[in-house]
């Protein structure tokens, strides 16, 4: 599966188009991480636990999107965008969407 966030796949031609595909995941932070983050919050700096959480969530969303594209018979997703929304306190939704295409 080729993933790009430009409107084509550089070096390849789009031969078929399958429409929008998307994947999302909602993640909440857990208490342990929150406690550490709270301590770290006094002195400032990077919150590694949250960075990891964010990374996992983003990968999961991308993978779900790729799976959906695969079901359509696509071999690439172009024009991918990431977006976030907070659905509940302390939880965040990360979603990825793009256009499923077949390239040659």
């Amino acid at each position, binding site marked *: 599966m080729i993933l790009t*966030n430009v409107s084509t796949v550089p070096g390849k031609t789009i031969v078929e188009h399958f429409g929008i595909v998307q994947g999302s995941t909602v993640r909440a932070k857990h208490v342990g991480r929150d406690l550490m*983050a709270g301590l770290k919050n006094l002195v*400032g700096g990077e919150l590694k636990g949250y960075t990891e959480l*964010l990374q996992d969530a983003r990968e999961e969303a991308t993978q779900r999107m790729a799976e959906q594209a695969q079901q359509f018979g696509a071999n690439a997703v172009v024009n991918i965008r*990431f977006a976030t929304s907070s659905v509940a306190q302390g939880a965040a939704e990360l979603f990825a969407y793009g256009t499923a295409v077949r390239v040659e």
Partner: protein
Amino acid sequence: MDLLLDNLDLVMFLVLVCLGYTAGSWAEKKHYRSIEAREKELLSLAVVTAEGSFPKNNVAQAVLVTGSAVVSIDYFKRLLAILRNIFGGRVKSYESLVDRARREAILRMKTAAQEQGAGMIVNLRLETAAIGRNANQKKQIGSVEAIAYGTAIRFNRV
């Protein structure tokens, strides 16, 4: 001594402010130094926000690369921001926070692209997430989450 014990709340508060100020500004300076050093190192890898078009036989591979960072603010700066909320205006203490998070995210993305042997990153996009809560609320974790993503292009060797 009695005075100290009587005003334990106030003492705790002052200790936290001092700790936040010293540790916070030390960490920030250190982070900025490391960001600047790595930015210089990765300068040869061009990043553009435009899509660009490439001759067909020139591109070997195109991959999505991402990078993210969550940076939190220290106690002292949060206090400054709360005071700023009363009068309004430019909240300088948060500007550096957002700046650090974005630059760190871009750097991580560039590192990921370099590992893939990319020659260029096109169509850079920046996104802000909200896993922690808003940066400006009391008794909550004040942090900024930045995501940077783009398409890394690996060129054919000529």
